[in-house]
């Protein structure tokens, strides 16, 4: 009798344990992991990423190939270890087969390395834009349908030198892979055009007090190139304004993004007129962009215009959904078919055509912009020029581009 009871108990336990996995295997839903920074200094950026991703999901009314899409969220705090932890949780506990993310540069490098250990899971980048996430030592199952930080700078260096007439520019940027990539992209053109960068300041991410950094910028520079994001950018700009900063600014892609332009405070005085470049432009008036903006604005808490994070997550989520649609939502083969489809996928996005190179990094249009004040007082990035179909080597032959060396604090250099 006692034995019998115990057996029953064991059976009950066993069924209790297997039930969740049975539910996982249900055929009518498909799980997609969404990894972004929902905590830490890049929280605002992470929140907008989710809006972008959800815009793509709602475009297909939450179903793909007849299956219901279930989004499982993972949160990181912009540090590589937190991103890997969140990715592991999504892949190993929640069992997602498609993962969109992460958001920040170093996170991308770490998740790419993690991707190599999970060959049956398909990773699509979120908004992380370090060059070497795809350029050196790429993972075969990691795709980036958004462009990288150096690509985002296409056209800016030349514009600053030729049109704005800046000859000497100091840079201030955060000390990790994405700003290295951005500075690299800016300087590649700026130095080639004949400009000089006498001083580069690298500040730790999450730094609050920039006044000492501002004081250390040489006084004889024509402009300051700033590649800071989120709260860091707001702090720098406010303190730059307080210290009576006179030199004009040149913005990194996320420095003049909607996540910063919508911040409250006096920083707008120093922002108006700042040239920048990136994967989006707020005043882009093509129908596909305006349609995207309308769809995006239906998301709760949306900005006046989608940030580049919303855009990047939208593009990658969209690519994942297109790929899943083509394979009929079937990832039972370890996603091999899906990845094959994604590799050759080329589609029209709100910002023009996107296709992948052999490293699975996007080739897409880049927008040269300038910050302007709208009639209603909001700040917008006005479109100056479109640089069509920029590839990861910025139009330089791949061998020559590789010879420039990996991005770092000291590379490139033209003092």
């Amino acid at each position, binding site marked *: 009798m006692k034995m019998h009871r115990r057996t029953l108990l064991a059976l009950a336990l066993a069924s209790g344990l297997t039930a969740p996995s049975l539910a996982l295997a249900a055929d009518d839903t498909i799980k997609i992991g969404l990894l972004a920074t929902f905590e830490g200094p890049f929280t605002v950026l992470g929140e907008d990423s989710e809006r972008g991703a959800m815009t793509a999901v709602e475009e297909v009314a939450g179903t793909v190939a007849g299956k219901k899409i279930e989004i499982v969220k993972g949160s990181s705090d912009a540090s590589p270890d937190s991103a890997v932890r969140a990715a592991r949780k999504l892949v190993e506990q929640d069992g997602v087969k498609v993962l969109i993310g992460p958001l920040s540069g170093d996170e991308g490098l770490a998740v790419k390395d993690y991707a190599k250990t999970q060959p049956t899971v398909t990773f699509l980048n979120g908004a992380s834009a370090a060059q070497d996430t795809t350029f050196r030592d790429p993972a075969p199952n990691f795709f980036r349908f958004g462009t990288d930080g150096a690509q985002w700078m296409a056209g800016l260096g030349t514009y600053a030198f030729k049109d704005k007439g800046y000859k000497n520019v100091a840079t201030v940027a955060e000390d990790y892979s994405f700003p290295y990539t951005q500075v690299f992209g800016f300087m590649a053109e700026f130095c080639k055009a004949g400009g000089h960068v006498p001083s580069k300041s690298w500040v730790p991410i999450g730094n609050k007090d920039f006044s000492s950094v501002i004081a250390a910028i040489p006084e004889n520079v024509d402009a300051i190139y700033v590649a800071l994001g989120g709260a860091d950018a*707001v702090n720098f700009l406010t303190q730059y304004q307080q210290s009576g900063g006179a030199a004009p600014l040149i913005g990194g892609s996320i420095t003049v993004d909607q996540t910063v332009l919508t911040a409250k405070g*006096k920083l707008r005085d120093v922002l108006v007129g700042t040239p920048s470049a990136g994967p989006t432009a707020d005043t882009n008036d093509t129908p596909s962009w305006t349609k995207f903006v309308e769809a995006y604005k239906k998301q709760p808490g949306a900005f006046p215009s989608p940030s580049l994070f919303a855009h990047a997550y939208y593009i990658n989520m969209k690519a994942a959904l297109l790929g899943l649609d083509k394979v009929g939502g079937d990832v039972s083969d370890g996603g091999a078919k899906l990845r094959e489809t994604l590799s050759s996928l080329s589609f029209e996005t709100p910002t023009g055509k996107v296709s992948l190179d052999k490293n699975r990094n996007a080739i897409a249009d880049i927008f040269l912009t300038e910050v302007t004040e709208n009639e209603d007082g909001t700040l917008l990035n006005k479109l100056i020029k479109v640089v069509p179909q920029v590839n990861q080597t910025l139009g330089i032959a791949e061998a020559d581009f590789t010879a420039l060396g990996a991005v770092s604090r000291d590379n490139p250099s033209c003092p």
Partner: protein
Amino acid sequence: MSILDRPSSSGISGGGVSRRQAWGLFWLLVAALVAWLVFAVWPDWLNAILISKKAFVSAILNGITLAGLYFLVASGFTLIFGLMRNVNLAHGSLYLLGAYIGYEVASRTGYWLLGVAAGFIVLAAIGVVMQVVVFRRLEGDDLRQTLVSIGISIVAADLMLAVWAGGTYQIAVPEWLDGAVTLPVITAVRSNGASVFLTYPFYRIAVLAAAIVIGIGLWLMLNKTRVGMMIRAGVDDRAMLSASGVNVHAVFAIVFAVGAGLAGFAGVVGGSALSVAPGEDIRYLLASLVVVIVGGMGSISGAAIGALLIGLAEQLGLVYFPTYGVVLTFIIMVVTLAIRPQGIMGKSR
């Protein structure tokens, strides 16, 4: 003590200088060097080593003003620990909440000072509630108090994220505190002979002044008033104080109110100088932990010295070796722990 000391010290020193005089001479030299660095026009070789005089002097000034801010936060932390042996790891949350409340009040009423006052008063009240409702129940159970305070800080962080979202807020500094002042420090001489003077944000000087005034106020309260006497007695021997008829719970509540209020005050002041965003709670908690470990747990003057060391280390590190600047703070902590585990001004127990 002094009578016993005198013959021996004069005996050792003999005809030379005593240890005390040597230290005095050393500090005098340091002071002279700093004065020279600040007021002299730098030769080129020095500019080459230290980037520029402007960068160096600004970093020093920023370090001192940042120290003022750290002191405001850490003094409450150290006071609460000294008296109650309660490591309140929710102290950073009090800072952040104070900043948000200050922002709301200041932006709605348009009076910045009202925001500062609200930050202090609301947080002081919350501090009392925390002490009475939570910590009093766990009295004498240090570990549990610490764990509960971690729990409170996590819940508070998420609640604040829910209410104020993840955005970066900037509390507007009033007109009369805004702008830059020119200090009588020559940073460079132009080729035409004109001197370039150092300009510095007026608000930061005001923050430093406020920190000094509050520091002196705290010292006076602790050393010259009856409540201060009770607090000091409580720090030394809680049971004895209670036995001599003092209502220790009232003393605890006062200390918690002052400590939490100061954190809230610092939140508004700091949120105006820098900015307010999620994550600040952890940052200031960490800063005040390091400050009190270096300065000595439970000592106000220790908090001041610790804050000064950490503030200067952070700012000089940021300018001269930004990549490893963060490490500098912790090196100071490790060295302190190795040489003087109780902290610079701490008493060994």
